[in-house]
């Protein structure tokens, strides 16, 4: 499983990096979204893989850490998801504004002269 | 015995549903038209939802139900938005 997840994360990250290096704002925003998926999974992976052990206590009492997946990376991912959602929205609006003010969707606000 | 049958069938169901996702993903990739891609995504969602349900059965805990529920309740919103965009050129008029 580790290898699959690692490859999956790698694919997402690679695609994302490819896109953020592209010249069109829309490509960049898609790239950033893909990257944030990759990173979210990466964070989760840092807690090590556990299958069928969601960190929800089955019994009300002192929990046994061995029985549950590491909850902390999950909490971190939740925060990261929220933040990346917010920043995606922001970037979208900025790229729209840039498009409106500069007349192009090139990331530099002008087409490269060729 | 029955348990292993169940286990095997669940594993198989995972595989079948994942294959179904593959078919949907093919449509999303190939198109040819935008509506094909959107239909593919919709099918992907349905497959994923069923995958989550079978996963819930496999795990024996009902903690995964909500994820499936969210797909059922909200999964259509994205598709509606896409369809509306195709239909009208903008999502909210």
């Amino acid at each position, binding site marked *: 499983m580790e290898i699959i997840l690692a490859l999956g994360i790698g694919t997402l990250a690679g695609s994302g990096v490819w896109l*953020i290096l592209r010249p069109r*704002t829309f490509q*960049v925003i898609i790239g*950033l979204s893909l*990257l*944030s998926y990759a*990173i979210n999974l*990466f*964070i989760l*992976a*840092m*807690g*090590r893989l556990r299958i069928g052990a969601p960190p929800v206590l089955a019994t009300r009492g002192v929990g046994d850490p061995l029985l549950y997946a590491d909850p*902390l*990376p999950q909490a*971190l991912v939740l*925060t*990261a998801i929220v*933040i*990346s959602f*917010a*920043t995606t929205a*922001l*970037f979208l609006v*900025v*790229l729209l*504004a*840039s498009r409106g*003010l*500069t007349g192009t969707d090139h*990331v*530099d*606000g002008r087409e490269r002269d060729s | 015995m029955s348990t292993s049958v169940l286990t095997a069938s669940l594993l198989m169901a995972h595989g079948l549903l994942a294959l179904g996702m593959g078919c949907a993903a093919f449509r999303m990739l190939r198109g040819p038209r935008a509506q094909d891609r959107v239909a593919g995504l919709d099918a992907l969602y349905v497959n994923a939802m069923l995958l989550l349900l079978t996963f819930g059965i496999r795990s024996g805990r009902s903690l995964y139900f909500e994820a499936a529920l969210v797909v059922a309740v909200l999964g259509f919103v994205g598709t509606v938005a896409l369809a509306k965009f195709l239909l009208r050129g903008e999502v909210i008029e």
Partner: protein
Amino acid sequence: MSRFADHLLAAPIVVPLLAGALMLLLGERRRALKAAISLSSTFALVVVAIAILHVIDLPPNRAGSTGVYRLGAWPAPFAIVLVADRLAALMLLLTSVLAFASLLFSLARWHRVGAHFHSLFQFLLMGLNGAFLTGDLFNLFVFFELLLAASYGLALHGSGALRVKAGLHYIAINLAASLLFLVGVSLIYGLTGTLNMADLAIRIPAITPENRPLLEAGAGILGIVFLLKAGMWPLCFWLPTTYAAAAAPVAAIFAIMTKVGVYIVLRLWLLLFGVEAGASAQFGGDWLLFGGMATVAFGVIGTLASQDLARLTAFSVLVSSGTVLAATGMGQVAVTTGALFYLVSSTLGLGALFLLVELTERGREPGADVLAVTREAFGEEDDDEEGEIGVAIPATMALLGLAFIGCALVVAGLPPLSGFIAKFALLSAALNSSGANGSGGPISGASWALLAMLILSGLAALIAMVRAGIRTFWAAPNRTIPRVRVIEMAPVAILIFLCGILTIQAGTIMRYMRDTAEVLHTPRSYIGNVLPPSASEARGAGRS
């Protein structure tokens, strides 16, 4: 520390949060009330920062005094703690003072130019203060994001093609950097199992040799992020454009933003990779040194190549942060002492300069035409934007010129203002590894480089500033005298005055800086305060 002082540590974060949130409930038109709230909140922050500084600096335990605030009353390595040591307290004060000046300046005009300026401003302060105070690596990420998010908003404040173009780059790069931040933090957590900075300092020396490259990869990636925020070459190209495009009060408060990156490098590098970090001790120190120098070189080139004053100032920001980085990379207490003084001095000077630039360029604002177009399109919304830009006060040009000279002196490191003292302290320390009573022994190559760098950067800054100053103040006899209000000149004057105070009170302030540097270089007291031995035994236990 007393209980009151204990709760004081949360105030720099909670006060701006409450102020910012409260202002969301007020309507768009109630600007006076918002300004009052914002101003009082910022003033309160100044007071709080002074109070914290006072408590931290209290004798008898001066050097080792560190305030620790356990949020939610949860024990330390597990939950989030706020830690105020001397460095954090210093940064809090610097931030609040700069913020107060910027805010005051913005009341003349800028706070009316876009929506929710005051809320964004307060949230920026919350983010900055949180980044300075937190003792938790992931919480640092959150506050970084907060201050960045607010900075995005403020950088775009006033809109216009220039700002939006610059903002797009700024945001894209910082979003990518934020993702790297997450990679670094989670990697470090995956290997050490902790997020608490002090706890990390304890655990890093014990990392196994197989895991060490992984840990260092995480630390390296984090380092890239912080150095990007600090504006290290070659990760700094976004900075001049963004800062130059930002509205004046925003640019002024941004003068502290690169210093956040520098602060984190100072804090984490010295805490986690100090001499006690085992096999990873001094990890990346050369990178800081050479990167810092490259940054200074690039900053100098940029200052010389700049045609407008705002861009010149923005490049000076690079010079400033490069200098601190390089000095930090030398890894010596005395040099760090000088670097801290330099940090404060240059931040105040650059803040003042950013404010001033706008006043002097007021006659020929390049963004004006863009604003006009927008106004034409959506007229009714920006009706009162121009309003009363100001009565021209007498001798405006003379005052502006004087202020400009003051800023230029601070930035170029010339007497009589604090820039000179800062450079002197840095160089004296670099040449004589233990103050001025060095034995005349050999001087390291790094010290020579620092010497050359500071001298040359000072000269370049001087040439550039003189060129710009002459163009602005001397070469245009027929220019219209900008209409400047007292409320706009006052903050500039305050900041320059503070640079003067820094010069006169150099002895007292430098003593504080030395104590700060000592604590930074021997983080045992920091760790001991965050994780007292008694508490680490009772780790499993919850709150009492």
